[in-house]
Every structure is written in C-alpha cells, then in structure tokens.
C-alpha cells in the first residue's frame, strides 16, 4: 500500500492502542501468576502488582496435598478425553455425508439437526429422560446428551465442501474405494485443521463443564474438577470469623485465611494451564477454522 501523509502518527496511535488492549488482558493474568508465587501477607496487603513479592511455592505445595482436587483433575481428564473422542467422531462422520453433493436426503437431515438449535425440550424434560435411561450419576450423563453439536457439524461440513475438491473423491471411487474408504483414507487425512479446531472446542467444553455435573452427579468420587473448584473458589466466602477469637488465635487464623486466599490464585493457574498450553499449540489452526465458519455465512 501507498503511504499516506499522517501515516507515522496514525501508526503510532494504532500501536499504542494495541498496547493498551494487550495490557488490559495481560495485567490480570500476570497479577494472578505473581500472586500465586508471593508471600500471602504481601498479596493481601496489596503490595503485589506485576511481580511476585517474597517469592515462595507454598501455595502450590498445599495444593499438591489436596487429594479431592486431584481426583477431580483425574475425572476431568477422563471425561474430556472420552467426550472429545465421541464428539469429534460423530461430527466428522455426520459432516462428511452432508458435504457430499450426491447424498440423497441431506436437506431433510440438515433440517432435522438445525431444528434443535432453535427449539429444545429444555432442562427438566432432558433431566427426566437422562434419569429414566439410568444414566443419572454416571459419566454418560455428562457426555451423551450434548454429544452432537449442530453448529460444529455445519462448520465442519462447510470446511469439507470448500477445501477438499470433489473430484478427488470421484476419482477414488473409480479406483474402487467405497464411501468408508474415501472417508478414512482421503477425507480424514485432509481434515487436520478442522479436526484440531473441533478437538479444541469440544475438549474445552468438557473441561469447563460445570452445570451438567451439578445436576447429574451425586457421587463425590465422580465429580469433575470444576465442581471442586467452585467449592474452593466460590462457595468458601468466609466472613466474620475473625471477630470471635483472641489475639493469638486471630493472628494464626489470619495467616491461615491469607494462605487460603493465596491457594485460590494457585488454583486458578493449575486449572487453567492445560488449556492455555493446548490453545497456544493449536493456535495456528484457529483463525483458519473460525474463518471457515465466519466468512461462509
């Protein structure tokens, strides 16, 4: 592009605005990280901003001893892996036929799926159904009811239609491939980017899922991480304990309260880290994957 007159000033302003935007996000994240590595007292007194003060790993050491939490962590990993596997296979298997020009009945089938985006039976009827199917308090109650996402099927179908030439499939057919052969030997190997995006979306959904577990699970041993997180991070707002104690007890109690507070910062990090890393790893596929969904509409 040709350079305009005031380009330097304009660029400076734009870059500066960009910097402010970055700071608005980064400051919060950095503060949480720094706080989790700091001396509890310093955090509570408000002396920690961008860098840790009184560096120590106490919060993480306490965290390691919390057996509940690691059980939740383990459960969440299992639910995420199994759930994502189900989601991605169902999405690809459904999107592929719908992307085929010669697939009879795809209009009706698409409507069948799309209808559920606009009208659903709602929370209670779904709950009654899950219960009557005997899935109450089991892993499947978290994984099966939302296993098919119409929105992702459509994104995926659009990707297959636009980025894999139909001619390849036709010539494969002439070479004697059947439909499953085409799907496994041609379509899947060419769908890397969209599969990466699907894995990311679905896995994130399972990892962060709180509501299904809240209504369907009763057994503490089956709780996913988010339930334990909600107990520690949200439902533990203790107020007014401090007034009832003697001075010495007060000091000890205060120290304990400070540490409990710090533990929460560490917990935020430990629970969010896996997805931040996965996000950075799969990041290059994102814009591509989202663009397929966004532009085509």
């Amino acid at each position, binding site marked *: *592009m040709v350079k305009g007159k005031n380009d330097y000033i304009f660029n400076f302003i734009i870059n500066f605005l960009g910097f402010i*935007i970055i700071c608005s996000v980064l400051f919060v994240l950095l503060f949480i990280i720094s706080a989790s590595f700091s001396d509890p007292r310093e*955090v509570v007194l408000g002396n920690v901003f961008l860098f840790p003060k009184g560096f120590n790993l106490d919060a993480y050491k306490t965290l390691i001893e919390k057996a509940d939490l690691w059980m939740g962590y383990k459960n969440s990993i299992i639910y995420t892996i199994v759930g994502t596997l189900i989601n991605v296979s169902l999405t690809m298997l459904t999107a592929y036929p719908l992307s085929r020009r010669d697939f009879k009945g795809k209009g009706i089938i698409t409507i069948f799926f799309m209808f559920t985006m606009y009208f659903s039976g709602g929370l*209670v009827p779904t709950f009654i159904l899950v219960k009557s*199917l005997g899935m109450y308090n089991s892993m499947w109650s978290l994984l099966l009811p939302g296993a098919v996402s119409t929105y992702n099927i459509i994104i995926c179908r659009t990707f297959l239609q636009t980025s894999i030439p139909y001619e390849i499939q036709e010539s494969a057919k002439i070479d004697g491939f059947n439909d499953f052969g085409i799907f496994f030997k041609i379509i899947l190997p060419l769908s890397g980017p969209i599969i990466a995006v699907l894995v990311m979306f679905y896995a994130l959904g399972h990892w962060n899922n709180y509501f299904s577990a809240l209504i369907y699970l009763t057994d503490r041993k089956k709780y996913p991480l988010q339930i334990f997180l909600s107990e520690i991070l949200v439902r533990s707002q203790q107020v007014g304990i401090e007034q009832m104690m003697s001075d010495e007890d007060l000091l000890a109690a205060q120290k304990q309260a400070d540490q409990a507070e710090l533990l929460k910062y560490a917990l935020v990090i430990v629970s969010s880290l896996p997805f931040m890393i996965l996000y950075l790893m799969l*990041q290059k596929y994102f814009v591509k994957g989202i663009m397929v969904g966004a*532009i085509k509409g």
Partner: protein
Amino acid sequence: MTIRLNNIKGQTQIKKKSFAKRLKNNYQLYLMVLPAITLVFIFSYVPIYGMQIAFKDFNAKLGIWGSPWVGLEHIFKFIKSPYFYKLMWNTFSINFYSLICSFPIPIIISLIVNEITNARYKKALQTIICAPHFISTVVMVGIIFLFTSESKGIINSVLDMLGFERIPFMAKAEWFRPIYIISGIWQNFGWTSIIYIAALTGVDIEMHEAAIIDGATRLQRIWHINLPTIKPTIIILLLMNMGRMLNVGFEKIYLMQLPLNQDVSEVIATYTYKIAFEGGSFSYGTSIGLFINVINLILLLIFNNISKSVNDVSLW
C-alpha cells in the same frame, strides 16, 4: 456465521435413480449419519415430547404420559406470581446492558488490530486477547471474588491506596450488573473480535487503492470501506444476541449469586433451576422453560424479519 441451509436444489437432481438403487449405492453414507441422528433423536426430540409435563402435574410414579393434565395452570401461575416481573426485568436488563456495553468493543478492537502493520505484533496481540476465553466460568467467578474481596482484593487495595473507601463489591446489589458485564467483556472481547478480524480479511484491496488515489485518509477508509465490509457479520451477531434477550447463561449468574445481591441476580434460569431441582416442581419448571423458549423463538423471528427487510441479511 454458517447458519444457513445449503442450496440443495439443482444439486440433488443430477441423477435420478430408483430409491433401492440409491440406498444400495449410498448405504455407507447413511450408516455414517446414523449414530448422530439416533443421539439427536433421543436427547433432543424425546425431551420435546417430555415437554407436555408443562401442562400436567408431573408425578414420577405415573410417568410423563400417566400424569394428569392441568392445562395452562402452571404458565398462569408463573405469569401471576409476584416474582414474574422482577425475573423478567432482571433477565432482560442484564442481557440488554451487556449487549449495549459489550457489543461494540470487539468491532472497534478488530478495526484497530486490522490496522496494525507489524505481523508479529498483530499475532501476539490476537493470541493474548483470546486467552481469557479459555478460562472456565467457575474460575472466572473465582477471579471475580478474589479481585473484588473487600479486605484482600487488589481492586480495594488500589482504592485504598488512592485514598478511597473500600467497597464490598459482591455484597452490594448495585455492583452486581457492572461486575457481571465488565468481567464478561474482559473474558470475551478478544474471542469475538476474531470473527470480525476474519471478516476483515475479505476487504477489497482494490477499493483501498482507489480510495488512496482519491486522497482518502486512513480513518475515512476504515469508516467507508472496512466497516461496511463487516456489516453483514455485525448484523448477524447482533441478531443472534437480540434473539437471546431472555436467555441468560445460568452458570455465571448462579455462581455469582449471594443472598445479598439476589434482588438483581435472580434471573429466569436460576429461578427455574431452584424451582425444579431444589423445590422439586418439575412441571412448573418445565412450563417456565417452555414459556421462555417460545418468547425467544418469537424474538428471533421478529429480529430476523426486521433485518431481512432492512438489510437483506438473514440467519436463514
């Protein structure tokens, strides 16, 4: 957004074969869609059948079919209940204020990001502003509690340092909406802006070149070329948000709810949850859900028609 049916006419009429032969040719494709169809049928269509309990007095022993009919009793009970206006207003207002405050931000951000010429800087910016999207609702609410804590939170530390009074944010009903909205913006603006940034890659470069020759400044070009390019995307997202006006997410509000802020934080979703799962009135809960579902559908149709006639942009 790809919420549009494929144009099937003209594509399916390529070959006319007998049904049996088609089935034989394509049976593997039907096998592929079968699992998803079965699951959607069970978990999306069967509950629609179950919705009839909205007009019945559901009794677990009698089952969905056997429970006695009561007609519209539950829906009238909801409309006449003393909570009705409060719930409707709380739900509507939290969505409405959220929409007004948070909708323009990703658009502005995407226009700014699009002007950044340094590719590395641009990429770093995009990566960082998307990161908060990956934080779970539970953790996000946890962060809110940590930051706004009266005695230990950083926001109050800063207020204290600047010589202001400490504010017990979460205990004050009037702070509920602002905190809900600001945290929502912080978490999602980067993610939503990706959609606009993607749409901006479709800008016609020749138009820009022509505009430069005509002496247009960069601001003018943003206003007259870039913004109109993403207009369809803006309208579709706005439409979808308006259609969801009574459909506030349950989790965040439920987690942020304290007895002290219940006056503004009790919304339809949290109320329904409590009615059904804490109170055990399945029929009443279902009828509230159905009532809201129908209103949402009507809203969506209305906004879609407005946009179709004014802008020629439609969800379908």
